[in-house]
């Protein structure tokens, strides 16, 4: 009996100790102090500032980079099926395109060393890089380019739809005849086609789960929706590169877990979507694994722009009236939203570009923030008491849209928040089937002709079915596209920005651009690069990356 009593006591004590330990450890866990917006003492890696990652010893060979984000890929090897921006990171690890972007956002050759434009014919003649081989040893030449373009065309890819004929001049020259000239053609054809070995294209099913490109790494293991592992491409054409032995990319959707795993040193680099968690990381500054660096850029390349887009196509909607759209734009204080929610990562903007981008028109008098003027415009449009409407947003970006809704409410635009998941949101803006206002959240491109075409064109795929298509806007868009002179094109792009966002004459067709979100990529300071940034969404210069640890 005595023994039984002792056993009971021991068990009770053990249970109590376990509980106490867990509660104590949880209680001891220090929450990182989050800095108030606007205060000094920025984290060691100040967002927006470029990091000096140079090392006196130079790049080191070896190591495997472990990167995680919430984005996966469906078929990493069969490139025509990779259609969204999130795919670019995977694509550019194993594949290459004819052109890429320099750090300033300009287009530079990659698999092409040059190109000649004939805007009258119209055509582009590409000069291809010599001595480039695919991972399977097949040569990269004009025939390979032709075969890939044909594959893209068979999959109805818009980027290649403009090509009506191709002429292989020799191994390193190919001429593409276009149905009509577009100033975005070089970027569209040059950047969005990723070249696969023609031999590998004979078995598309096998290629879907592997890879065979000219890029620095090739897929060695693919677990859909979970992870993808790459190993060094022995045939890579850049001498001495890549520095890393391999790259492993993991899909981790749960943001808290992603951050915890990064802090525990399980990943070298992550991309966060949740601003609150990102701000905690920034405030933390460093962990046992090293100093946390916010990998960012300011040239407008690959950044995310957010805004409010009202449905102006519906004639019965108050937003069909430009005065109401202008009132909506005037009612929201972008700077206040950035200060409250941005933690230094958000930049207020009043145009469809980041303020540092080349297509941002500095001569425009912005619509600004003026609630009295907004009320007056609403009264003038016949809504002195305001009206009720809906603001549709996705949950990840609900914070600042909730704030925007509160500001709109102050002038009489009473918004009911409608939270939808990504698939519903895509369905809404691709069909134009949204009521009231949509919270816009998308990657921005510095080429306004390419970017705005998706919205302004009658058959554009983003919001186009839900907005008006005024003649003057369409004419300017056509001029941008038809321009074969960079300076002239830029001038038209600035005119288009003015037409949309100028204080006195703008149509506010796209409602209100609120802010630009700089990349929320975080890495440890031991992950460096040889020249350009390791990752800027559209520019994942992974061949240049190396690890100093």
């Amino acid at each position: 009996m005595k023994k039984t009593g002792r056993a009971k006591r021991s068990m009770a004590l053990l249970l109590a100790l376990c509980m106490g330990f867990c509660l104590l450890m949880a209680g001891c866990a220090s929450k990182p102090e989050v800095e108030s917006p606007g205060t000094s003492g920025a984290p060691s890696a100040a967002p927006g500032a470029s990091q000096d990652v140079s090392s006196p010893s130079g790049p080191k060979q070896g190591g495997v980079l472990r990167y995680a984000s919430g984005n996966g890929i469906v078929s990493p090897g069969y490139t025509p099926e990779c259609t969204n921006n999130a795919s670019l990171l995977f694509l550019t690890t194993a594949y290459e395109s004819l052109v890429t972007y320099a750090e300033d956002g300009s287009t530079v050759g990659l698999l092409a060393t040059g190109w000649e434009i004939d805007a009258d014919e119209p055509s582009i003649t590409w000069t291809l890089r010599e001595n480039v081989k695919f991972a399977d040893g097949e040569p990269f030449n004009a025939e390979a380019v032709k075969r890939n373009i044909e594959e893209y065309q068979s999959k109805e890819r818009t980027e290649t739809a403009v090509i009506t004929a191709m002429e292989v001049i020799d191994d390193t020259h190919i001429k593409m005849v276009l149905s009509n000239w577009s100033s975005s053609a070089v970027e569209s054809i040059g950047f969005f086609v990723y070249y696969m070995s023609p031999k590998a294209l004979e078995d598309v099913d096998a290629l879907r789960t592997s890879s065979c490109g000219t890029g620095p790494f090739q897929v060695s293991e693919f677990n859909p929706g979970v992870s993808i592992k790459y190993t060094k491409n022995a045939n890579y054409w850049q001498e001495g590169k890549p520095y890393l032995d391999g790259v492993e990319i993991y899909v981790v959707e749960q943001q808290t877990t992603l951050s915890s795993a990064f802090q525990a040193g399980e990943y070298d680099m992550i991309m966060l979507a949740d601003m609150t968690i990102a701000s905690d990381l920034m405030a933390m500054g460093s962990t046992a694994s090293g100093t946390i660096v916010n990998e960012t850029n300011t040239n407008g390349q690959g950044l995310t722009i957010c805004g409010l887009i009202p449905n102006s196509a519906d004639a019965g909607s108050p937003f069909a009236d430009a005065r109401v759209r202008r009132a909506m734009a005037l009612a929201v204080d972008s700077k206040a939203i950035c200060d409250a929610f941005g933690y230094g990562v958000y930049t207020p903007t009043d145009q469809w570009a980041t303020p540092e981008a080349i297509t941002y028109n500095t001569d425009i008098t912005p619509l600004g923030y003026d609630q009295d003027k907004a009320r007056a415009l609403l009264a003038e449009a016949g809504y002195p008491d305001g009206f009720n409407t809906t603001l549709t947003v996705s949950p990840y970006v609900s914070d600042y849209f909730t704030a925007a809704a509160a500001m709109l409410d102050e002038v009489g635009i009473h918004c009911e928040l409608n939270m939808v998941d990504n698939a519903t949101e895509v369905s809404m803006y691709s069909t134009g089937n949204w009521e009231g206002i949509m919270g816009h959240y998308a990657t921005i491109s510095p080429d306004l002709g390419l970017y705005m075409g998706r919205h302004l064109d009658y058959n554009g795929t983003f919001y186009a079915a839900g907005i008006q298509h005024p003649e003057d806007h369409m004419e300017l868009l056509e001029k941008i596209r038809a321009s074969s002179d960079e300076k002239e094109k830029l001038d038209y792009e600035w005119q288009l920005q003015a037409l949309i966002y100028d204080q006195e004459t703008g149509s506010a067709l796209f409602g209100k651009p609120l802010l630009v979100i700089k990349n929320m990529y975080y890495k440890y300071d031991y992950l460096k690069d040889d020249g350009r940034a390791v990752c800027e969404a559209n520019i994942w210069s992974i061949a240049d990356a190396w690890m100093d640890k």
Partner: protein
Amino acid sequence: MQSVIVIFIVTLMVFLLMQLVPGDAVTNFLGASATESQIEYYTKLFGYDQPVLVQYFKWLGGLFRGEMGRSISLQMEISDVLVQRLQVTLSIVLPAFVIAVVIGVSLGIVAAKNRGTVLDSLISVVANIGMSMPMFWFGLMLILVFANILHILPTSGYVYPQDDLGAAIRHSVLPVTVLALNYMSQFCRQTRSSMLEVIRQDYVTTAKAKGVSARTITFRHQLRNALIPIVTVMGASLGAMVGGTVLVESVFVIPGLGNLMISAIKARDFMVVENGVLVISVVVAVCNLVVDVLYGVIDPRIRND
């Protein structure tokens, strides 16, 4: 037969309900920049242009030929994906279930045998905490303590046992613990209450009077008679665990069936959802069948009836 009808109704309902969800698989797969011709191409390729009931019966017909179809969002055969993901889920669920049964039933017996004592109260408190603590929160707390503070376990991820058994065990400790704790509490409470019902029965008093050992009385006379409701709860729980691990899989980034279903719903990949529901329904039906068989083993009178 009853189970087959239930499974048929469940799959038909899921198929029809999924059609009401806004958004479609093709647009989601291609992205918002897809052109009409691209959308048309893939819609035809995957048979989404056909009437809903035609799609359903085509899928049903495919099942009889051993084909589940192809996933648009994963670009893989659905049967391959499901087998792979079910294995992962079972590798977490089964250890959690065994742990929950062993500890839960043991603690329930201890609590019942010590009714009204401090030990009983302590076990009841722990069981209540286990049941009421959200799995999501508990998982994050365990990550914080064991991965971020103590650095003794990984935060997340999954390693296949055949690749590295040690790493597989280390990666499984936290998710199995979270999953086991909740169900362990349920089994503990059920065992305690069932044991208390039989503990004062006449046959127990008779066995004591005959000098039967305490261990024999507990396991042969009391527990066996208390087992029917416990086994019922266990059967229902095992089915629920397979279909309901989504929170644990999400927190610990485990590529199991729950995560697959959530991704498929987000991608509007209805065929994956449909087949996933089918697999879960079959698992639940099998669990119920096993429970029915166990009733007969535990109580021969049921078998004779």
